[in-house]
């Protein structure tokens, strides 16, 4: 256990470093974008005078390192500042959307992870059967359709006939049942998008172990195929499966802007794209850091879990 704690501490330190690098990359990239906040807000109607006035008001005339330093010192004290485009505190803007994003990610994961595990185990159990082939081809087809297209098809089938709404209208006061009903189609879309990856990894990880001597042993002892897969193969195959689940969870939190647009779902991805378009660097930075933290923490959790589920890894440290 001591080893695990040490690993967590070490990884958290590295995670902090990652966040720092992310903030520099994002800041640099946003700086490199043509135009700035003032010209983005004023758009076609900008004149040299109004641009100058706005730059002065927003403090955009400071050199980039000065602005980065100001942002960094604020962020380190937990103050992400005020959105320059809307003049609202960034924490307020993000709070509710972060909740929405996490809700949708968990909802989709709650559908996708069990589905992927069951399908993956069954495919491994009946490997090379028709079931295996069809499940595999079906899952592959599902991920090879662009997300927005999967969404349109689901809307055609399930929303136009009146079963589910084609757009999500939730507020902080909506009841859980309402939220689940409203967000069903986006969650289903994401489920279709992420299931294939997890299912294929589950199947591959299990099959990978099926040639091992200890499985052979169990088989010779006369254990049923299902028992062999569930009791002998699956526990040892958990590490790669957990890793893939973590990666997909990270995707569900950070990569779903297209689904948000199609279902008008007020999540962080849309806010980030809007903020990039307006060059509202402080907001972009805050969201990028949330996304990066989610990624780092999920990977860390996955590593801890795989270490815990696999004593051999633990000994290696």
């Amino acid at each position, binding site marked *: 256990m001591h080893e695990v704690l040490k690993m967590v501490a070490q990884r958290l330190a590295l995670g902090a*470093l990652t966040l720092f690098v992310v903030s520099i*990359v994002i800041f640099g990239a946003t700086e490199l974008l*043509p135009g700035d906040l003032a010209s983005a807000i004023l758009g076609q109607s900008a004149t040299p005078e109004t641009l100058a006035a706005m730059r002065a008001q927003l403090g955009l005339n400071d050199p980039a390192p000065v602005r980065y330093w100001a942002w960094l010192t604020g962020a380190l004290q937990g103050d992400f500042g005020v959105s320059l485009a809307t003049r609202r505190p960034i924490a307020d803007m993000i709070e509710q959307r972060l909740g929405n994003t996490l809700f949708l990610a968990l909802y989709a994961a709650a559908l996708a992870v069990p589905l992927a595990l069951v399908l993956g185990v069954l495919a491994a159990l009946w490997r090379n059967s028709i079931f295996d082939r069809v499940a*595999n081809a079906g899952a592959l*087809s599902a991920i090879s359709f662009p997300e927005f297209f999967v969404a349109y098809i689901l809307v055609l089938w399930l929303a136009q006939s009146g079963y589910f709404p084609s757009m999500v209208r939730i507020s902080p006061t909506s009841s859980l049942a309402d939220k689940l009903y409203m967000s069903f189609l986006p969650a289903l879309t994401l489920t279709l998008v992420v299931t294939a990856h997890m299912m294929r990894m589950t199947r591959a990880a299990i099959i*990978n172990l099926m040639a091992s001597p200890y499985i052979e042993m169990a088989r010779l002892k006369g254990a049923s195929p299902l028992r062999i897969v569930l009791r002998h193969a699956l526990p040892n195959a958990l590490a790669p499966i957990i890793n893939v689940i973590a990666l997909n969870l990270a995707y569900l939190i950070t990569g779903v802007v*297209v689904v948000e647009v199609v279902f008008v779902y007020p999540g962080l991805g849309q806010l980030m794209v809007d903020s990039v378009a307006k060059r509202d660097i402080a907001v972009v930075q805050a969201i990028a850091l949330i996304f990066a933290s989610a990624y*780092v923490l999920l990977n860390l959790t996955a590593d801890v879990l795989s270490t815990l589920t696999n004593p051999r890894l633990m000994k290696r440290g």
Partner: protein
Amino acid sequence: MSLPVFLILFLISSFALAFVFRAGLSRALPHNQAIIARDMPLTAAFGIMVIAVYLFVAIFAPLLAPFAEREVVGSQFQPWGGAHPLGTDRLGRDMLSRLIYGARNTVGIAFATTALAFVVGAFLGIWAALRGGWLDQVLSRFVDALMAIPSLIFSLLLLTIFGTSVLTLILVIAAVDATRVYRISRSVAQGIVVMDYIEAARLRGEGTWYLIRHEILPNALAPLVAEFGLRFCFVFLTISSLSFLGLGIKPPMADWGSMVRDNATLITFGDITPLLPAGAIALLTVAVNFVVDWQLHRASGLKE
């Protein structure tokens, strides 16, 4: 014809085709390969067949397409049949011709992108694993940071900075993909560099380049090939998602990802036009991965 009936018919006929294709292949090939061909599963035969057809279409696109890629041949959204077997698109260009040219452009771009991502990512990943130390640390931390940024939004940023020519599109998607490849190849290579034969080669005084090419790469190929299969297909999706967010390939070039986007609205009215390019992508994805699965299976040595 209802959809399930159509699907079942499609499945049956594709497997029948694959069966014939496999039989033909095992006859036509010299003895050694013929055995491999005879023993391969039908799915793999199906995959190889589809890939072969795609390559054929891509290479001979100008000969196969009834009209030019950019040519406006009539009014928009003409129904299927007659001179335009798959109708026309929203500008009145022949849909079939655009699908055929799309094969060439899409597969070409996807291949160039994935190949570049793998060359860069795999080389850096293996190199980092081999050298270790500060080089490994610096590279890995940097790649970690890049991976922690959502890839679609990051691509969007980069493309807005560097412009949207086909070359920048390939470079940007390849750069983002290379981080994923780096991570996999590094972890695979880390398992290999501790092996005795690497130590032996090092003692022989072999250089880094030799070690990568002759010792590590051949042993790391299987997982990399599997990754290649998926990454290759994801390039189409990335292009499609980018065009959803307002960036895309230079018109009037036809590519499937953008074609799905351009026609996607029609699905709302039950018009299946956008299913054509989407289906073309899906079929290729399935085919590539069938072949990859077969290769992985052969590499794992599991006999059943």
